């Protein structure tokens, strides 16, 4: 059981925006990792939200999404390989709103493939968007046979993360460590 959450680093994007955020040299002394993001993409065309892509250890490690929200009456299903761990607000959404996303990676130092869970919500108060609120939960398999030492975040459209987007990385220790 995880009982201790230690902040590792919090990065807030400055006025020039950022194409990517990378946490390098992640300590291998914790049990699990937790990421909390408050983010907004500069995307201003197309869909209301923007995807959050995640790469581990500097390479776009393929992650198989094994559970995703379906349409009404739909069933969760395995349907793809993906780097997409969720969605964030874009510049198409209500001004000054930021999407919220949490990601949890147990046993991130393992040499076996690692599971991950992420949940997110992106808000759009305008009735003209393709949807008002995007919410979802995804379980993924990170196909990496070494410990995670680096995590890189980019948007699905290549747009910048906008100012005040915040990325926080936490280490989690199990009881007795």
């Amino acid at each position, binding site marked *: 059981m995880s009982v201790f959450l230690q902040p590792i680093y919090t990065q807030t994007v400055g006025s*020039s*925006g*950022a194409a*990517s955020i*990378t*946490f390098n040299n992640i300590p291998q002394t914790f049990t699990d990792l937790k990421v909390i993001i408050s983010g907004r993409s500069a995307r201003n065309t197309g869909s209301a939200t923007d*995807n959050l892509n995640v790469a581990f250890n500097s390479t776009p490690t393929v992650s198989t999404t094994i559970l995703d929200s379906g349409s009404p009456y739909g069933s969760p299903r395995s*349907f793809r390989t993906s780097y997409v761990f969720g969605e964030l607000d874009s510049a198409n959404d209500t001004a000054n709103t930021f999407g919220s996303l949490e990601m949890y990676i147990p046993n991130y130092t393992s040499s076996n493939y690692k599971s991950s869970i992420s949940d997110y919500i992106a808000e759009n108060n305008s009735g003209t968007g393709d949807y008002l609120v995007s919410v979802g939960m995804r379980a993924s398999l990170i196909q990496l046979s070494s410990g995670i030492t680096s995590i890189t975040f980019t948007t699905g459209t290549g747009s910048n993360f906008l100012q005040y987007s915040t990325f926080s990385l936490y280490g989690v220790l199990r009881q007795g460590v």
Partner: protein
Amino acid sequence: MATVIEVDCTTGISTEREQTAEEAAAQAAMQAQAEADAKVKAEADAAQAAQLAATNAKLMALGLTQADIDALLKAAKA
């Protein structure tokens, strides 16, 4: 060229620099994959919706009301 932010979690030092051409290419590849994934998902959702609509129509043709069908679906998911 876009800005990238790198954090060294060991030293706690955050660095901003310009994105390299190689990084931009890798990011573009990820975007292309993500777009392909999104297309597959959209097609799967559309196919599932079409199948459900067709099934719904068949059930209504048998004399069931929409309320009957909804009740059956609710019971099946319970």
